[in-house]
């Protein structure tokens, strides 16, 4: 496959292997962001209330639901994950 001609990765995700899609007012989103902070895992946050592109991406992954948080860890998509699911994905991708 010629990667240069392939589809572009979702905008805004290029700099971070870990991206949290969620809202500022969601406790579970805050929990995930803080969990990653404590693990010292570099990540970005995309606010699906304000970022339509991010919201569309979440709906694409979740069958049309605006599930938050949805966490992208490398190529793994975790929908409303528990902390042990995040931990497993971080370990799998050698991020902790």
């Amino acid at each position, binding site marked *: 496959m010629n990667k240069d001609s*392939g*589809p*572009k*990765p*979702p905008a805004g995700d290029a700099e971070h292997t870990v991206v949290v899609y969620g809202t*500022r*007012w*969601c*406790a*579970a989103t*805050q*929990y995930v962001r*803080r*969990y990653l902070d404590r693990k010292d895992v570099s990540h970005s946050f995309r606010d699906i209330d304000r970022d339509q*592109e991010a919201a*569309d*991406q979440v*709906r*694409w*992954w*979740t*069958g*049309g*639901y605006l599930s938050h948080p949805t966490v*992208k860890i*490398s*190529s*793994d*998509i*975790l*929908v409303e994950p*528990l902390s*042990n*699911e995040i931990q*497993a994905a971080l370990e*799998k991708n050698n991020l902790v």
Partner: protein
Amino acid sequence: MAMTPEDRMAELSQRFSSLEPELEASPEKEALSILHAMIQEVRRDLLKGSASTPQDSSQAFEKVANLYKSAPGMEGPAENAGLPVGTQAPDFTLPNANAEEITLSDLRGKNVVLVFYPLDWSPACSDQLSLYQSELPEFDKNDAVVVGISVDSLYSHGAWAAVRDITFPLLADFHPHGEVSRLYKVMRPSNGFSERALYIIDRQGIIRYSHVSPLIHHIPDIYELFEQLESINKS
């Protein structure tokens, strides 16, 4: 060199993610999206076996602990503005889950994060207080203690704290019903429970931060809360 199954999965997943902007809204797009979501759920089930979940909890306990996930949600705008910053925090005494009387002024000398929340067992509240539980070391670092208050009875607080592993005090503003919530201008007349509201009371008993969630299911931003605590500690 042949790809490993993990690499293959990673490549496929990345390609799938990238295709979203390329497709116009259509039933076909929706069907693909649903299929992806179904695969995620199957994958989650498969991973469950290897994930470290507590094995000693009974099914009944698990069921009760997870009730909040399917409980009816709460919605609605705030009906109160709360007390303003700079106000002397009204003193009060309320029982915790062990029926011990807790008096606010006895906590003088520490920053107190007073968390008014609508009700035990409700979805957003469960997540909010669990978030604070996970952050207790950070609160401690900021010389702050967390105190939860709702109109639930002390027995409800006890059961809820047990299933959620909440160790900070939950105070029962049960009788007279909502008296302290009224004192702090956060009682919702239409519901009989309080707003979701936060106060930071400094070591001298002055309210230094006041936040009433504009919508009741909105949890205050914890990054803002920690910023406020850091700023109070610096001043």
